[in-house]
């Protein structure tokens, strides 16, 4: 049995040898001189070649690579080109009414706008100061759809006249890349030798430059460490701020979920919501997630999720 295996291997080797023998029989000695002169000519040419010719050859042989490099350079330059963007700061609802209705309308507005941040200013009308009052209702942190709903509801209050809705916008210039990254801003702030006030100002300036005009953050001292506190949060603003070095770092990461990001219809308790958030963000611990259950204006349960990640 062993002998036959050995015999088979020997035969196999002979078989393979035949194939390589065919290759080994290829003789190229006749082409040696041709190759010799070809190589000599080429190497002499390359020695004599002027710098301009070398550059020309480099361009000819690397046309596509150069084209790609130029395109990337143009793209980078275009990304730094400033573009104007318009941000909506809020909505202004203006209307008139008789002086006798002022108190009633103010109370109605209070009832209407439970969860919205607003400010109401009432002036005497310039045209008819004795009998007519002008209402200026400023709606902050709201979108156009909600503002229109409020406008319609105000329109239903008796005595309201000349009802108008105006969007309050701010226009500012920023690079294209900053505009493109508006939905997620990443900030690394070094707090050394800086006061809490100057850090707060620096962070808020960065947020504003990134188009997050409705968001503001405050830096405070907490048992010897600097902490970030969220004061205001604009709709659809997402960011991550890292403050401090590796040992004392405080991180604030805000990623607002759009409707549809989480299917919360089946979620009833705070624990279920916490599990759902952890499932979507596996790097978060229980302590990082704060869940508040509230009722919205229609009396429906809503969950407010606050995430603060500390490294």
């Amino acid at each position, binding site marked *: 049995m062993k002998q036959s295996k050995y015999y088979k291997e020997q035969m196999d080797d002979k*078989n393979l040898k035949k194939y390589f023998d065919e290759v080994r029989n*290829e*003789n*190229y000695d006749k*082409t040696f001189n041709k*190759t010799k002169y070809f*190589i*000599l000519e*080429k190497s002499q040419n390359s020695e004599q070649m002027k710098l301009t010719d070398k550059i020309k050859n480099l361009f000819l042989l690397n046309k*596509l690579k150069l084209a790609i490099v130029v395109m990337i350079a143009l793209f980078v330059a275009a990304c730094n080109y400033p573009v104007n963007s318009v941000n909506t700061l809020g909505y202004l609802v203006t209307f008139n009414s008789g002086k006798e209705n002022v108190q009633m309308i103010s109370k109605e507005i209070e009832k209407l706008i439970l969860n919205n941040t607003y400010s109401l200013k009432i002036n005497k009308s310039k045209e008819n100061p004795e009998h007519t009052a002008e209402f200026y209702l400023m709606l902050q942190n709201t979108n156009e759809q909600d503002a229109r709903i409020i406008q319609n509801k105000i329109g239903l209050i008796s005595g309201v006249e000349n009802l108008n809705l105006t969007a309050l916008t701010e226009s500012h210039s920023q690079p294209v890349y900053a505009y493109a990254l508006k939905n997620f801003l990443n900030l690394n702030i070094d707090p050394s030798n800086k006061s809490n006030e100057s850090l707060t100002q620096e962070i808020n300036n960065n947020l504003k430059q990134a188009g997050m005009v409705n968001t503001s953050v405050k830096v405070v001292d907490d048992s010897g460490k600097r902490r970030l506190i969220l004061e205001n949060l604009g709709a659809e603003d997402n960011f991550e701020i890292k403050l401090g070095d590796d040992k004392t770092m405080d991180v604030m990461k805000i990623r607002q979920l759009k409707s549809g990001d989480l299917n919360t219809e089946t979620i009833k308790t705070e624990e279920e919501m916490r599990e759902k958030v952890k499932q979507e963000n596996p790097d978060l611990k229980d302590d990082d997630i704060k869940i508040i259950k509230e009722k919205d204006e229609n009396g429906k349960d809503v969950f407010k999720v606050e995430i603060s990640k500390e490294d």
Partner: protein
Amino acid sequence: MITDSNEFFEYLKPVYSDCIRFCKYLTKDLNKFNYEDVFQQSMLIACEKFNTLIDKSKFKSWMFTIILRESKNFYRKNFWRKFISIEDSPETLNLEYTQDTIEDIDKKNLLITALNKLSKKEKESILLFELGGFSIEEIKDIQNEKSLSSVKSRLSRSRKKLLHFIIKNKTDYNSNNRETLEDETIKILQRTNG
């Protein structure tokens, strides 16, 4: 430079055919590109760097190492090569071997196909051994391997794979190729006869 070049060609002459055969079967990847390009580039580099070779007795293994490196560079740069127009392509050597019979061509094509089924390292080792005539120790140095046993086992594995492929495909490959050749001959004859 001329003296160096002459000395280089003196060293090259005895191993010239070995170098071409090695280069041809190492890079012949079913018409992906011409092995002449790799060979020519390797020769130019070797000619230019010849005076840096201190131990001239190692000329052959030095040449084969350059060919190996250049073949890898050509595979790497092959993507960009597609975009160079024919007019821009530099002039190349023509080293086509034309003394083969149809049977020889069949055998060689089968061997090339079998070699292309091996991994790059396996293909390199078997060609260095069979066509370069290097010892296992020398192959270990050329391939930068740490142990002889890895080269030995790679060679044995490559042989087995080659044999297995050749035995399995020998009959089919020959008959298929014959049929294609016969068809081509009939077509040419028909065209000539109008």
